[in-house]
Each structure stands twice: as C-alpha cells, then as structure tokens.
C-alpha cells in the first residue's frame, strides 16, 4: 500500500511538472507576444519593451522557465497586471468559495446519483429505469450555463425563492445556504446525472458476475447480496469516474459562477480574460492543475481502500 501511494505521488508530481511546462510554453511559444496581447495592437514599441522587461520576457527562454518553476514552488506566482496584488493572494481569496460550491455539488451528485443508478440497474428495462436513463441523459446534455439560466429564471426571477446574485460572503449559515442553493443545485444535478449513469452500468456489470451467483447459491437474501456483495464492487468504477468528472465539475463551476454572479475562480478567470491579465491567467492554470492533480491522488487512494487487490500489489 505504501508503495502504491508513493507511486501515485510520483505520477502526480510528473503530471504537475508536465502541466506547468505546457502552461509555460503555451504562454511563451504560441504566436502572439504576451506583451502585445496585453497592451493591444495600438501600443507603442517603447511601452511594449518596458512591459516585456517587467515580465522578464527579455531574458532567455530557459532562464524564464526555471524562474517560473521556482516561483511556483515557493508560492511566488507574480503580480496581477490589473490590481497589482500577488496572484496567489487573489486566488486564495476566492478559492474557499469555489471549493465550497464544488464540494456541496459533489455531495448532492453522489447522494442522488448512486442510489438512482443502483435503483435503475435493479429495475433494468422497466419503466423506472427508462425514466431515470432519459432524465440523466437530458441532465448531461445541458450545458451548465443553460441549466443555470433556466434555474435562475424559474426560482430567482419568477418565484423569487433565492437571490439572483449570490454574494458567497454571507455571514450567517442561512445567508450562505441561500446563496449557495441554486449554484450548488445546478452543479449537483449535472453531477448526479453523470454519477447515475456510471453507477447504473457498474451495478449491471456486477450483477452479472459469477460471485453474485455464488452468493445466491448460498441462499442469501437479495437485499444482502446487493448491499454486501455488489455495492462495494460497483463503487470501484464509480470512484474512478467521480474523480475524472471532478475536472468537468470544476470547468462547470466557472460557468455557474458567472451565471449566478458568485465570486470564485470562475469569475476571477473571466475577469482576467477580459482584462488580458496574463500573469493571473497563468496562475489560474497552476491552481486548476494543483486541484486536479490533488483530486486524482485522492481518487487513487480511495480506490486503494475499496479494492483489496490494490493493497497487496
């Protein structure tokens, strides 16, 4: 198990290193001088030169690369070109709001998705199954901003149950909950749609396994077989997929935050895009990568806990 963890940790470091390299080279190598992108076509040669110097773009590529890597490791991600504040401060400032949103959505998605998927599998090709399958397919066909807008129109504008703009900074629990409700439901339902489908197919596969027949031959009650023999086996693929979809969830949190006008990484990244704040953008890529690599690591560890075959490797 220790070897397994160390191995995953090693892979995570390699991935992280790879992504940082990709980010660095996308910014430097792709056509378009960052200074020119930031200042626009009309800028004078002198102002471009001075910005290049400020950004360190006049130095050799290899020097820039190692300074970038070193900076990331010690937490120096540069300063925002717009606010002048350190990128890392800006990011850490809004990170809790995004994490809160993502975690609550994940919980909603799991709590809804796993039971629905299993129910659907147990009622295979019956009416319930049919309804759950079509609904979940519909759910994963909705872009997050579309479903967000529809929720907004229905519950905030028409019914006025929730605020149109969620500040994410409420002090009381009730405030926070009401701010969080619509964005979290939006993301959570989409996540539930994904998890439902994975849980269903995982369960269907497990139900066909020889060991289920063995358990039946032992005379165990069906509920016991499902609960004790099938569930844990079915969870193995679900965990993998939940890990994979977390990336998707983070992508969707951008759109959700925009639609509900909620502070978070999403608003930060779109602001950086509009204002061509490229150090900020670069920092955002780093933080997204960190999050995803971390999530993958946790997924692998959970996987190791559920599947005893990993432990002995």
């Amino acid at each position, binding site marked *: 198990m220790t070897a397994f963890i160390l191995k995953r940790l090693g892979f995570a470091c390699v991935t992280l290193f*790879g992504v940082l390299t990709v980010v660095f080279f996308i910014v430097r190598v792709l056509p378009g001088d960052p200074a020119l992108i930031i200042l626009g076509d009309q800028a004078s040669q002198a102002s471009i030169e001075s910005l290049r110097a400020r950004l360190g773009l006049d130095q050799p590529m290899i020097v820039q690369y190692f300074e970038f890597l070193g900076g990331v490791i010690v937490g120096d991600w540069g300063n925002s070109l717009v606010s002048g504040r350190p990128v890392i401060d800006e990011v850490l400032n809004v990170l809790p709001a995004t994490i809160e949103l993502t975690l609550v959505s994940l919980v909603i998605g799991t709590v809804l998705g796993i039971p629905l998927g299993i129910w659907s599998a147990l009622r295979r090709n019956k009416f319930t199954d049919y309804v759950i399958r079509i609904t979940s*397919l519909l759910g994963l066909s909705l872009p997050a901003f579309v479903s967000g807008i529809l929720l907004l129109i229905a519950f905030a504008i028409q019914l006025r149950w929730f605020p149109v703009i969620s500040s994410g900074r409420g002090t009381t629990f009730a405030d926070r909950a009401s701010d969080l409700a619509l964005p979290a439901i939006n993301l959570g339902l989409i996540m539930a749609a994904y998890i439902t489908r994975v849980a269903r197919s995982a369960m269907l596969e497990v139900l066909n396994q020889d060991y289920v027949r063995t358990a039946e031959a032992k005379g165990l009650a069906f509920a016991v077989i499902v609960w004790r023999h099938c569930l844990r086996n079915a969870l193995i693929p679900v965990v993998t997929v939940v890990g994979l979809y977390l990336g998707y969830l983070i992508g969707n949190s951008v759109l959700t935050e925009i639609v509900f006008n909620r502070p978070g990484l999403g608003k930060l990244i779109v602001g950086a895009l509009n204002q061509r704040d490229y150090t900020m953008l670069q920092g955002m890529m780093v933080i997204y990568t960190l999050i995803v690599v971390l999530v993958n690591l946790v997924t692998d560890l959970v996987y190791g806990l559920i599947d005893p075959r990993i432990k002995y490797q």
Partner: protein
Amino acid sequence: MSAPHLGPAARPASRLAYARRTLSAFGTGLFKAFNANKTSWVGLGIFLTVCLLAILAPWIAPYDPIDQSILFRLKPPSEAHWFGTDYYGRDTLSRILYGAQISLTIGLLAIGLALVVGTTIGMIAGYYGGALDVILMQIMDVLLAFPSLILGLFIVAMLGPSIENLIVAISVTAIPQFARIARAPTIAVKEREFVEAGRALGFSNRRLLAGHILPNILPEVMVMGSLYLATAIRVEASLAFIGLGVSPPTPTWGGMIREGFENILDSFWLAVFPSIAILIVVFSLNLLGDGLRDAIDPRLKGEE
C-alpha cells in the same frame, strides 16, 4: 472428412464478392446496432434534421441573421418573429439557424481532427507498449489533467477567437480522450490470437495496426466520437458564452445566450430559444451515442 473432394463446384470466390460481403456485413452490423436500442434511431433522426436545417439556413431563414433594425428591438415572440428579436432587432430564429452552421462546423471538424490524431496516438501507445506507451500516455494525462473547458479557454485566449483557433483548441481538449479510448481496446485486441497469428504469418506492424486492429476498435471509437461531438458543441457554446466564441456579429448559440443573459430580467426568451437549440443537438447526439454504445458493448466483451 479426410478425403478432400475437389469437384467442378469448387469455384473460388471473386474479390468483388469478398468486398460486397464485407460491406454488407458492415451495413447489417450497423443496422443491428441501431436496432438494438431504438433511441439511437431517434437521436440520429433529430441530429440529421438539425444538420439539414443548418445547411438550408440561407433558404429557409426568414430574415438576414445580422441585419439590425432599431424598430424591432427586444420584441417577444410573434407571428413575424417566431422566436422574437434581440437587442439590435435581429431575428432570433434566423440567428439560431445560422448559428447551427457554426456549432456543427466547429464541432465536426474539431472532433474529426481529434479522432484521427488521438486514435493514432492511442493505437501506437497501446500496440508498441513499453517506454513509448508510458511517454505518450503521460503527455495525454497532462492534457487530460486540465478540465476541457479551462484548457480550451486558455488556448483560445492565447490564440485569439477565430473558427480555426476554436477548432484547434477544442480538438486539443478531445485528443487525450480519444487516445485513451483507442488505447484500451488496442491492448485488448493486440492480445487476441489473430494478431499474434498475423505476426506468425509475417505481417508487418503497419498492416496489423491498420488492417486488423483498427477495424476492430473503430466501432468503439466512432461511438465515443458521437458522444464527444456532443461535448465539443457544448464546449464551443460555453466558450462563446464566456466571450471567447467566433467574434460578433456572426451568430453563435453561446453568444446569443450571453446576449440574452444580459437582458434576462426583461426578455428571457432571448436566452431560452438558443438554449433549447443546444439542448436538442447535444441530447440527440447523446441519445445516438449512448444507444450505440449499449449495442456494441457486449460484442466487444464477448464474441460475435
């Protein structure tokens, strides 16, 4: 059984007969896959209808999609403008029809590109294995580590929003997915004895990859292609919604929703109609791909 009975009936089959047989078997296979899950037919029908409407847009759209008309700003749906008009008085229905062209072009080309590149990478990694596999897949994992929307957003932000750049950005997000999808069955098929038999018969690696492995993994890749086409169209719309779509005034669905969203308090239909358009296309592709996936799954696991 032992004595070979060579007789006048022993006429060898012609090459044409082989080709016909293989093609018809492919056709029947496809037909069966569609029939296994009737919803795939529904998905295909809807998707083809949308494609047809997009192609016919210049002839069937009631208005010019970029003609502005101050007199008809923000009109709700009416007989003259079925889906209403936007802030510049442009007809929403016409813009949706033309927007379909953009969505489908970007989606199809991006996924086509990703399918070819990604499948090649995945097959090579899976077939040769070893260090090549580790390196290629590690690169793919690096790309996969980014949420596809974030990666697409980053690339478009750096390259600038144009149709070509959107195609490149979206296909880059899909390439690692196709590489993964192609790699797994390549490894499974590689282990099957007919590939080893091919090696024993002196076939080259290229022949084995292109002639023996590819036809066996293609159904799976194509089905995933239809599902990723749905994702690509969704990502394109999301980028346009963030403001990284094809530049205005070219109509894009994501861009229309963005404009509608800005007027959401008084003219919510502006956001609703293009939303429904996206939903229909993405849902039809998901129906199509999902049904087909169910149909090909058992065949890939068991035997035909």
